[in-house]
């Protein structure tokens, strides 16, 4: 009965490949987020959806594309992966756009 789940947990891939990360929440929340945490532990918001509508679209390369098929799912697709994309990507959800966020376990992406 995991609240926020992500797949895969680990992703090792070559430069130039395309990969996707999936996120699902069973909390009944209406808002979901993608964050990137770098090797220094800095946590930066990338995207957010509220009721399937994109409400936060930070300055990230357009190789990153989020997609929210419904309120319980938020996916992240990354094209043409680069070394600098290596990081931990966290999905989170909240009930409303300013409430406590619940984080998934993270996806550790390593680009070789």
């Amino acid at each position, binding site marked *: 009965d995991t609240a926020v789940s992500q797949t895969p947990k680990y992703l090792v891939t070559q430069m130039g490949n395309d990969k996707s990360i999936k996120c699902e929440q069973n909390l009944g929340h209406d808002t979901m987020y993608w964050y990137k945490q770098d090797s220094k*532990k800095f946590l930066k*918001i990338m995207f957010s959806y509220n009721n399937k509508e994109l409400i*936060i679209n930070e300055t990230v390369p357009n190789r990153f594309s989020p997609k929210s098929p419904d309120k319980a799912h938020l996916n992240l697709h990354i094209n043409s992966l680069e070394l600098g994309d290596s990081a931990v990507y*966290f999905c*989170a959800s909240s009930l409303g756009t*300013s409430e*406590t*966020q619940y984080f998934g376990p993270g996806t550790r992406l390593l680009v070789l």
Partner: protein
Amino acid sequence: ELKVEQNPLFLSMQEGKNYTIYCNYSTTSDRLYWYRQDPGKSLESLFVLLSNGAVKQEGRLMASLDTKARLSTLHITAAVHDLSATYFCAPHPSGTYKYIFGTGTRLKVLA
């Protein structure tokens, strides 16, 4: 753009000691969150502070908010090893959808 600074960035302390982590932010925010992250793990919510003067306590941790000074503190009382983790503050700027995370404070409690 909201800036959030935490200090110290690193904190090594003895068990049984008290210490305070500071979170300064640059823009009016209607609420502020504190999160904990264990090494290699996800983030866990600790507190939400909703108004000026708000104080929340849970076990050995106590958080407070001064919106006029744009300052939040996380006070640790009689630290124990289990509190070793990275602590993040995250103000929620008024009129936005964003949460801006601070730099994090890595706390290590030595036995």
